[in-house]
């Protein structure tokens, strides 16, 4: 369906990633946010707090991230599209409730504007060191989807995508920004509402006596009902059956947890979004995401000027990780070069997926700034010198 024009700030704007993300949420139909201030994410909810009373909706600043991350889920079950924003330390606090959202299949978006860590780290400076945490931060077996914008424009466009994916798969989606993308100001074009596709909530049409809250068929995603509609459903974080009732047996656990995993994994090809350039005939492929992909572009171009055959694969969905793509490429290229603003996170996934068919080179950076393109270039050159597999 098309976006509600009341939330769409159509026009050509000059705004930073944080502000664009807020506009993306509004365009996607979100009318509820619960947040807690944390640099460098706070501007997203500050803008939302200012916009939403003129659009129709609610922002509440909760007393901590533990509350914010569950208040938004209450709002979802009350009928809203909801999100929260945070950075490293808050993201850590939200982990239990990300797990709750995954377990109860609550569609929602968690924005992490990554900054230097660990702990209090570098509140005003970038990093990309929460990537593994986005995937594995909560306890137990579960799957999430994670997106990485690399510009304010993408902060707008991909926030809408994040909401859409969350509704389609009834899963919490991690929106992995970084401090540079969040605070850089660029042109952001917001189209008219009728050009924006929004995925509606998968609300059941079944009558009350036939509805089971966690019954699924083909695509493994159950239909949802909201509180107050007479369905008298039960939602719990305990292992549950199709009725939503706690059913704590190994059989129910196996069935439920595998479905939560498979509903994402089996759709991984559909979910995977990446930007590719000159992969055909490449010796080296640079795999990057977020702000690092902008820096890597400079290094890639410099390498090509030297005659090296360098392809680019920019991850837009970081999770589920595009293993298939990497595996295919690994058979054809000599090496992957993975620059990240961390000491090696997504590079591990690249290495795992490559399964020894190609070499993997990390270009690590502890955070606090962006890479020097020369540092990435150096590794590209080294990678292209390695013998063919």
């Amino acid at each position, binding site marked *: 369906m098309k976006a509600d024009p*009341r939330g769409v700030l159509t026009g050509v704007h000059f705004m930073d990633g944080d502000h664009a993300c807020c506009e993306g949420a509004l365009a996607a139909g979100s009318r509820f946010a619960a947040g807690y201030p944390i640099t460098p994410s706070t501007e997203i909810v500050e803008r939302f707090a200012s916009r939403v009373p003129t659009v129709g909706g609610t922002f509440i600043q909760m007393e901590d991230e*533990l509350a914010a991350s*569950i208040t938004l889920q209450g709002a979802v079950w009350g009928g809203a599209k909801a999100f929260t924003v945070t950075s490293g330390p808050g993201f850590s606090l939200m982990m239990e409730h990300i797990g709750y959202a995954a377990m109860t299949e609550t569609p929602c978006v968690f924005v992490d504007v990554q900054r230097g860590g660990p702990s209090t780290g570098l509140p005003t400076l970038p990093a990309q060191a929460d990537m593994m945490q986005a995937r594995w931060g909560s306890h137990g077996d579960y799957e999430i989807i994670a997106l990485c914008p690399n510009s304010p424009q993408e902060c707008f466009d991909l926030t809408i995508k994040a909401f859409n994916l969350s509704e389609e798969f009834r899963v919490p989606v991690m929106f992995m920004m970084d401090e540079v993308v969040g605070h850089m100001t660029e042109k952001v074009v917001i189209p008219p509402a009728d050009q924006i596709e929004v995925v509606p909530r998968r609300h059941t049409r079944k009558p009350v006596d036939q509805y089971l809250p966690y019954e699924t068929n083909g695509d493994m995603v159950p239909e949802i009902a*909201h509180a107050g509609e007479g*369905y*008298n459903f039960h939602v719990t974080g305990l292992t549950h059956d199709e009725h939503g009732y706690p059913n704590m047996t190994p059989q129910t656990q196996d069935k439920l947890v595998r479905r939560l995993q498979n509903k994402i994994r089996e759709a991984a090809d559909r979910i995977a979004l990446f930007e590719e350039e000159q992969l055909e005939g490449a010796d080296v492929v640079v795999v990057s995401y977020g702000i690092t992909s902008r820096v890597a572009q400079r290094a890639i171009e410099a390498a090509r000027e030297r005659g090296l055959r360098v392809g680019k694969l920019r991850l837009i969905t970081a999770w589920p990780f595009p293993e298939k793509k990497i595996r295919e490429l690994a058979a054809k290229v000599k090496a992957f070069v993975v620059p990240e603003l961390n000491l090696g996170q997504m590079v591990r996934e690249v290495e795992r997926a490559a399964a020894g068919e190609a070499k993997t080179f990390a270009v690590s950076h502890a955070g606090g700034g962006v890479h020097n393109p020369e540092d990435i270039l150096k590794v590209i050159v080294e990678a292209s010198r390695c013998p063919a597999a």
Partner: protein
Amino acid sequence: MPGSLINDLGNPVEPFLRSDRMPHIWCPGCGIGTTVNSFARALIESKIDLQSLVLVSGIGCTGRVAGYVKLDSFHTTHGRAIPFATGLKLANPKLNVVVYSGDGDLSAIGGNHLIHAARRNIDLKVICVNNLIYAMTGGQTAPTTPAHSITSTNPYGVFEPSFNLPHLVEAAGAVYVARWTTFHVRQLARSISEAFQKKGFSFIEVISPCPTLYQRRNKLGDGLDAMKYYKEKSKVRHGAPTNEVGLTMTGEIVVGKFVDRDRPDYQTMMRTQYAESLGEMFVEQPEMVCS
């Protein structure tokens, strides 16, 4: 049988229960089920629209209430029933949101959310079943466990002072504060009904036996012994100053309605402020229900 004229109405509680999930997991002599009877009675007597009634609970023995009542119900995470309930209420103000949880869940891990929701006067009805212990996990000390009690984490006796919950929530801003015990079944039902009429943060504490852990470890007998103690030692003092209603292991239990005042609730204050500041630009939230 000459009973053909008799109209057997059945248990008045039964329509509110998920009968397919009976029997429940609570121990013999546990008072939680008793509080559910009072809750059901309050629903009947106040003629609440059941469709818009939502129950949110946390983790613990009392938290299991959500799974046994036939309402839209949410069994959330430990300590976070109140913020979840806040989200529900803000997204759909027409919902009547009840938080039904235990003393450990609400006042320990959930303590921060308890005081902020009371401060904000969020329109929630909180039923806090206080069995003075962390029962589900095997009888650990709770912030409400009376001094000198034996628990599994204070095997030589609790030496911390315990919370006086009515005092705490009154200070934080609650507009309705009452305490009963599971002996006071009718008064509890009445308080719950009164809370339904109230707009704002209502808090009803119900002292309840935990025979398996609290009673047994402290050689206080079983559930029935606890009920007899409640009957003998409770004193109804409506309007009592809440700083005077602290509990001890075997002393007097002050019960009654302690606080019943009026303050604008969170959403009223929000609307007023926006209308004042934004005038015509303020858009009252349209139906949050997304299609």
